[in-house]
């Protein structure tokens, strides 16, 4: 775990900004327009956190897991590197290139590694993804001064303390081409800047950016604990990411069904439905009532194939969708889309609880690793340390 001042219940009591952009044909663009878009929503962040996730950014290393690491000092780095080397064949290790930027102070040491799990070490039954999750959870929970903030294939998260546009400039996201980019500007009210606490929250190739406070956090967390998810970061966003993993990867629900759980329809609306659908909705709500995300939120969830936007069921946080040719946008506000793209022809505001899904027309930009399995892959038994 990265050191620094943190408070328990590091919840996002914030009215953050979120922005997502995807080319459904899989054509690539850099993170540069995202920097401008997120800067245009400056009111929504307070300089205590910003971040980006880009998909398709490491095409030459697409078969390898890429870990982005934060270290407090060189000692922590050596320790983690030894641990990594004992679990993976390390195909690349380098300092993440950054450029000095006025708004970004005191960054931790930032490194990235391209990793191939050592075959003998991966238990057959659980598979390689679970193995990687265990490693990530171990480092984050138990290794002093170290934090894995990105662990997918052919994707990467860049985040830290500062305004998001400064963080983007610092990490040079304008120099990485990808086909999905998401960005987040944060307005935390109860935390001093802690680099690990910025969004996106990532595990394997799932990343989540989130605006809002989840009033049901206490029960969401206790429910997930029953399924072996140990919410170590104590953030709402973490709970969301685990809920998505449980519902989609482990229970095999579709994205629509998942949104019917996270932002369940009202009972009065359920009763208006015809029988088979009514029964389905009733059963979903009865079964997964403890995963209803109550309180204001809007989120963008991304993986190698999809970008999904969702708000709470009474839409207490804003979310706008837009289209421009093959480009799909999901944003807290509409203006930034027009700022970066004159060709935005269609914009709409989804209803509360209605998911917006943008999907690659031809899957598997991430080659071998991509496809449904990888997209549905995340973490298991997160409680281990």
């Amino acid at each position, binding site marked *: 775990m990265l050191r620094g001042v943190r408070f328990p219940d590091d919840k996002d009591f*914030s009215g953050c900004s979120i922005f997502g952009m995807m080319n459904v044909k899989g054509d690539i663009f850099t993170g540069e327009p995202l920097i401008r878009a997120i800067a245009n929503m400056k009111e929504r962040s307070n300089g205590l956190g910003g971040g980006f996730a880009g998909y398709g950014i490491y095409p030459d290393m697409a078969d390898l897991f890429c870990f982005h690491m934060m270290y407090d000092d060189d000692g922590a780095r050596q320790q983690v590197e030894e641990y990594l080397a004992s679990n993976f064949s390390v195909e690349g290790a380098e300092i993440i290139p950054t450029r000095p930027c006025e708004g970004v102070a005191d960054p931790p040491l930032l490194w990235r590694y391209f990793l191939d799990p050592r075959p003998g070490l991966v238990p057959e039954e659980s598979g390689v993804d679970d193995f990687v999750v265990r490693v990530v959870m171990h480092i984050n929970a138990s290794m002093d001064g170290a934090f894995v903030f990105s662990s997918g294939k052919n994707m990467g998260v860049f985040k830290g303390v500062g305004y998001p546009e400064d963080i983007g400039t610092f990490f040079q996201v304008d120099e990485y081409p990808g086909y999905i980019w998401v960005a987040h500007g944060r307005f935390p009210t109860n935390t001093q800047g802690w680099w690990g606490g910025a969004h996106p929250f990532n595990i394997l190739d799932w990343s989540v950016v989130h605006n809002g406070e989840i009033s049901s956090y206490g029960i969401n967390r206790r429910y997930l604990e029953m399924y072996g998810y140990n919410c170590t970061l104590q953030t709402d966003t973490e709970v969301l990411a685990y809920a998505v993993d449980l519902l989609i990867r482990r229970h095999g629900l579709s994205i629509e069904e998942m949104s019917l759980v996270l932002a369940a329809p009202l009972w009065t609306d359920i009763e208006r439905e015809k029988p088979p659908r009514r029964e389905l909705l009733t059963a979903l709500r009865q079964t997964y009532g403890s995963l209803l995300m109550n309180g204001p939120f809007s989120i963008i969830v991304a993986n190698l194939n999809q970008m999904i936007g969702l708000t709470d069921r009474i839409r207490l946080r804003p979310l706008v969708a837009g289209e421009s040719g093959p480009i799909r946008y999901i944003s807290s506000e509409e203006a930034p889309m027009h700022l970066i793209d004159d060709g935005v022809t269609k914009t709409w505001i989804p209803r509360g609880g209605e998911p917006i899904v943008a999907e690659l027309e031809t899957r598997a930009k991430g080659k071998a690793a991509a496809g449904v399995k990888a997209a549905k892959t995340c973490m298991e038994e997160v409680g281990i340390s």
Partner: protein
Amino acid sequence: MKSYLLPEFVIDRDDFRCIRCEVCVRQCANDVHWYDEEDDACYLDETKCVGCQRCATLCPTSALTVRRNPASNPDNANWTMDVLMNIYKQAETGGVLLTGMGCDRDYPIYWDRMVLDASQVTNPSIDPLREPMELRTYLGAKPDALEIKGEGANQRVKTRMAPQLKLEIPVMFSAISYGAVSFNTCESLARAATEAGTYWNTGEGGLHSKLYKYKDHTICQVASGRFGVHADYLEAAAALEIKIGQGAKPGIGGHLPGEKVSAEISRTRMIPKGTDALSPAPHHDIYSIEDLSQLIYALKEASHWVKPVSVKIAAVHNSAAIASGIVRAGADIVVLDGIRGGTGAAPTMIRDNVGIPIELALAAADTRLRAEGIRNRASVVVAGGIRSSADVVKAIALGADACYIGTAALVGMGCHVCQKCYTGKCNWGIATQDPYLAKRLNPDIGARRLTNLLRGWSHEIQEMLGGMGINAIESLRGNRQRLRGVGLSREELDILGIKHAGE
């Protein structure tokens, strides 16, 4: 033998106000008041007064004040007047001390040491008058995961869902048996439950056939005496409840004296008129958890697997582990009844000294079921001392799916918690079979008072939820983050699984 008992209550009559209407004379079944025509004066025998406040409430000129007898022995924390009176009583009769209602001792009431959260700035509170605010609750086993087949319009749930009870407010009426209370009391409860979209519970006294029409809102109990249990009874229920124990008297059975077993009660309970109805302490076919499981499945089988089966136990030291056993034995609902739970009659020493507070039992059971990963498999209902909507909200935040109210419901119909239910002379027409007294409770009015009470509580629950920025009750259930303790020790906080205020 000369009795050394002092009157428990003293009554002041303001003779200036008294108009000699004799209402008090007629209303007091304990014959405390009488009128002397020659003197044109009212007189009192306070030794018979139980403090039920019936006369004071109905006196048209408010001439009466009934209050605790302030008489006192020299101050003594150990040998209080209550202790002395109990000893005199037993020295005079050689009997077991009897009482009614729930434990009245000064154990900590944890509801009053917990406070609720509300939204400020960072997330909006919700106004329940303008926005939807959902209290609906389903009780019953839930699957761990849902399997869905088909696409689009053909989508169907593949998982077999267990039967559920649908509650429009997470409050039900506790088991109160016909026999312990009057028929009118049962009818008031049944009608109010039907109107409010919740359930009432027959207790162990069977179900009068006139109440079969409320079957969709009736939970029928199967207790150790098996009184009134037959095929039609099981049919006339929305759910079945096996009563193992009761918070007011854990570990002991029940006793309805023969004089209360009228023709109607004899028919309903299926016992001869005038005989004592004795409920054994244990079920004599349940000496272990496997035996319980057999009864659970026997009842499921007998009710064609369409009704949830509930198991009610008294909250005792290891009720968390027992609750886990009950869930594994196949129960759809586990009911925990705390030390403050009411009764028609119980030995005073048992009522006041056996069992644990419901708040601790609930927290421990919910934590245990979650740690074992089986919390989905059954709903948890708590009973025993729920007094207000705030208690309900706190219970749900601690982890309950719903609450049972017994005493609060009776109070809604007029009960003044005089604790003399076992005498059969309830002046409020509740705990009595005397037709003259029983007709004091008009079921039209009883039902209306109860629906009013539930409506008031449901508005208050909605306000508290909205204040927390939550618009569905399931988002509060088990959400202990929204609770804080005030003035509790670290140990108490740990058991309750909450933080201290300010943390």
